């Protein structure tokens, strides 16, 4: 049963998160910060998520290619 649960969890992790969990983490943090800025500081932070996503993509690509010919 625990093996089945583990493979079930691994499947969904791979399906949603994929090879690099950092991208998902950056998106989650950026969305939380956007909500915080909008609701607590009245800043219309529409720009935060695109900046974070572009940065996360570059970071992930750099990690995937560093040291490879």
């Amino acid at each position, binding site marked *: 049963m625990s093996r089945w649960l583990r493979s079930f969890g691994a499947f969904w992790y791979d399906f949603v998160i994929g090879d690099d969990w950092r991208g998902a983490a950056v*998106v989650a943090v950026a969305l939380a910060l956007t909500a915080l800025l909008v609701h607590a500081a009245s800043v219309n932070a529409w720009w935060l998520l695109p900046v974070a996503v572009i940065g996360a993509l570059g970071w992930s690509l750099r990690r995937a*290619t560093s040291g490879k010919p």
Partner: protein
Amino acid sequence: MSSLALFLTVFIACAVEAVEALTIVLAAGLTREWRSTFQGMAVALAVLAVIVAVLGPALTLVPLTALRLVVGALLAVFGLQWLRKAILRASGYKGLHDEEAIYARQVAVARTAASEGRHGVRDWYAFTLSFKGVLLEGLEVVFIAITFGANQQNQGLAAAAAAAAVVVVAAVGIAVRAPLSRVPENTLKFAVGVMLTSFGMFWGAEGAGASWPGNDAALLAIVPGTALVGLGYTALLRRARAAGRAAVPAAGRSAA
């Protein structure tokens, strides 16, 4: 988002997944046995239909702001995966998705697998191969169609686009009876990655409470902007790879 953009995004995304599922179904059917292959495909499609029937109406009950936050986050993460892989493939750091090679591998394994009947299925291997292939590729189709349809409150059009893509790919597959290796899969995946990431950012930020300048018209800047960033990263990686490869022989020459 216009109905045309919704239709095209879901259609292209689903067509790419359908091409991958077709490769597996053909490998199972042509090397093993068609009846068990079709049984596996039918059961997988039934499971997918149940998922759509349960999730589709359930999503319409979720308030739109919460739906956009969750779906936006998922689409942005999902889109980043697609875009990352497409950029790595386009720049040469990852091998291109080769349907012919995948088909050859599946056929080689299918030929050596033992033939055994179970639960009324004549060839259990063909059944499970086809079932897994259609279910796994179909899950991505269902995810994209349901999330886009729910956010645009037009599930019918999203479902029609997904069904049209599956029918077109299946019809072409039946006609040529070979994997669709000429489909420019990586270009299509790049385009879908751009769309998923763009809509993920748009809906995610809206769900978090932000308002985009120009409202829906902001997408006219977000989609091309994301595409340009993706193309820019691809060009940078290509240049870095070429420079790295040129430096290796030069270093070898100076050492000699």
